[in-house]
């Protein structure tokens, strides 16, 4: 459903991502792990069709970043720490606006908006300007925005950053529900607990390169350690040196 094929991005003389390859199947959550500056955001932006790959290609539900980035955006829900909501609009207005961009029928859009407001328990603040909401409330609205057009694939870049435990858990449960509904989810985070709780497989990225990938027990076994955190630390110091 989501596939990276030797995705590479150069910025001038520097290479942010080098020949990254992995895939995410329908009904699967894959965790993308890497330290700050590993190239996670660049990689996810390329897969979302926001950034043009220098080499290689990304595929989302059959659409290629090389030829059809527009259709990727139609088939994908993207959420990252950088994707904020308009401060002067309410969550309901934000959802309506993005529904229009996805060309949803007005009646369907209204139904879907009400449905998401109920699902993400946003009734109390759906008509308040986003600028007045708490971080958790904003993130719920943002997740609802990414889920709005019911995409078969989701890319979530550190979605729980700055959230309290309750809001974070609420979001993780929503992701699990989406996975159970058959969506392919690529999930980037720094929190190993979230990976254990949520991910079927992981991809370890460092300095723009994929170091290892697979189910968590296999990655740990290859590193000769017991936990994912130890596996993470096992790879990074030697590569950074």
């Amino acid at each position: 459903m989501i596939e990276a094929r030797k995705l590479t991005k150069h910025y001038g003389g520097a290479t942010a991502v080098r020949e990254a390859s992995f895939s995410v199947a329908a009904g699967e959550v894959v965790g993308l792990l890497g330290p700050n500056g590993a190239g996670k955001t660049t990689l996810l932006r390329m897969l979302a069709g926001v950034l043009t790959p220098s080499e290689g290609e990304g595929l989302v539900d059959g659409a290629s970043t090389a030829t059809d980035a527009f259709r990727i955006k139609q088939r994908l829900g993207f959420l990252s720490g950088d994707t904020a909501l308009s401060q002067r609009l309410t969550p309901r207005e934000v959802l309506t606006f993005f529904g229009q961009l996805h060309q949803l029928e007005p009646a369907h859009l209204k139904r879907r908006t009400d449905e998401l407001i109920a699902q993400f328990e946003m009734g109390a603040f759906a008509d308040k300007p986003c600028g007045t909401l708490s971080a958790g409330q904003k993130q719920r609205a943002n997740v609802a925005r990414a889920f709005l057009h019911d995409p078969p694939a989701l890319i979530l870049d550190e979605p729980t950053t700055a959230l309290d435990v309750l809001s974070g858990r609420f979001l993780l449960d929503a992701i699990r529900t989406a996975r159970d509904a058959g969506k392919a989810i690529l999930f980037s985070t720094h929190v190993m607990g979230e990976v254990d709780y949520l991910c079927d497989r992981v991809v370890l990225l460092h300095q723009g390169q994929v170091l290892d990938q697979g189910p968590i027990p296999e990655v740990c076994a290859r590193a000769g350690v017991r936990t994912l955190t130890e596996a993470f630390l096992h790879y990074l110091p030697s590569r950074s040196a």
Partner: protein
Amino acid sequence: MRWPIALALFRRDLLEALRDRRTLVLLVAVPLLLYPMLLVATALMSGTLAQQMQEKPLKLAVWGPAPASLLKGVEGAERVEWVERRESLPEEPAREARKLLDERKATAVLALTPVPVAGAGENLVMDLYYDSGRTESGVARRRLDKVLDQVKLGAVRVRFEQAGLSPELAEPFQVKESDFRSMGMFLGVMLPYLLLMALVMSGFYPAIDVTAGEKERGTLQTLLCAPIHPLEVVLGKYGVVSLFTLGGALVNLGGMGLAFLALVGGGTVGRVHVSPGVLVAAFGALVPLAMLVSAVLIAVGVLARSFKEGQNYLTPVLLVVMVLAHGAMIPGVELTPKLALVPILNVALVLRELFTAKVAAGLYSVVFVSTLAWAVAGVLFAARVFESEQVLLSGEKPWRDIFGRKVRRGDHFSPGGALLYFAIILVGSIFLGVLLWNRVPLWAVLALTQVGVFGVPAVLWVRRSGADVREIFSLRLPTLRGALAIALLVPAVFGVQVLLRKSMGTVSMPGAEEFLRLMELLMKQSASWPLPLALAVVALAPAVCEELAFRGVMLAGLARTGSRTVAVVGSALAFGIVHVHPIHALIAATVGLLLGHATLRTRSLLAGVFLHFVNNATAVLGARAGAEPAWMDSWQVALALCVPGVVALWLLRGEEPTPEGEPGGVPANDASVSLGQAR
């Protein structure tokens, strides 16, 4: 390009901007208060200051042998204070006088030197020292001038009497002054400046808000994840900023109109006249400027990564506008055809002329069209900036990304490509026209403009794109049915023009007389050329070159919108605008509709070329035949000429038109071009 999406983006940005109260205060409240305050303040200040200056005493020093009549005359004048009176001159009168003036002990110093006159006593040479840099000294000088004139006149009258002549002969004429300038001129130069600055300031903060502000808030990133084209984003934002700049212009003009019409009888202050007609004309001149300013504001604004950075980036834009608008305040700078091409300054000059005098419709049109050309170029530049992912994602070296990108093959035949081509030929035709005018014969101006601006660039544009020249230019013969329709359109083209001319006479359109005079002049000139030359430059060259440009490149590019209506109307409008004069533009645009429709339906450029040639050639031959027959100038004849046109349109309906979205064999753009792929 999907208009509903652009509209949704526009609505979102507008809603956000309107919820920012600072913007509303700046846009509405300030202009409504500014102009009444300015008017009252100007009236009060000019009156009060002038009165204060007049009431100040003239502190005078007089050195040298002054005749009694002079001293009596000066003493008799009101508010004169003797500072110093010496019978002899100091050694260095200039230095001493300067000292007195610098120490503010005197406002004027008079040094008298007797000069003997053979057989008639002596005359006096009066050296008057004053400081024009000090207002009170300048006023003193003017007052002293009057006093000395009276004294001098008295002396001459005495001499006339002594010579046995009538003293009345000493004053052969009297001058009575009425000064209307001071306040009027001040307002006349200030109003355009204020209007332009208000226009820019109205769009300044909204532009930062929807570009750099949106980046800083992270909402642009969110937007880019949605399935939208960069052109839709730029149009939405451009629409909002244009609305604010135009709204700013409108509210400012409204405030000005209210101030003048409510506070001043008849809207006239000195030489400044503000009437509803003047305000409408001023708004018309501000429309293309608002479009240009808005495009520049968002193109520059989006380069910044934060609101603060946006202010830093846009401040130089504001300074450029200030400097150019200030040009209209410089004495001696007049609106000429060359200055009519300089953006911002041209509009400032037009506004100044509108408020203080009358502007020729032709010059007004040049300003309007040239500013429109700059605006089109500005919009295309903004669109290019918005296609850069380095700019939108706040990456490094955005300039390399903007200017280093190659134009893709086929981009020339996108609607944006058509607009770019139009901007180029519009600027080219105006600049070349101004450059050649009065330097080479008129026939050479026409020929060079047609070939150099329309013909050759059209062919080069198509060749550079790699598209099939024969297909883009629809180089094929029409069917028999198509040919019959074209033949029937010939009288209709004339009929439509007569109808338009008669309608203009009925509603007394401004500039109509000027247009008819210009056309008469052109036709008279062409009548003096050899017939083959006249036909070549007035009929053949436009028929071929303009058709290649408008029914070739423009029609093909605009047809890529997927709408034949947009293609025909757009190319006709472009055809009209390039004729500059508003009346000529209206006629050309109307005829352009027929030519475009016929070309698209017959799939043959020959339709446009033939109709264009017959129309212009008839005008050339008519000019040689003398006055137009009176029967031509009637509604009935005009309507009768249009009848075959109705049949022609019916025949054209049966023709297989160029498929929508595929003019000239260029496949339609795939609507799903991503931000990255648009590179």
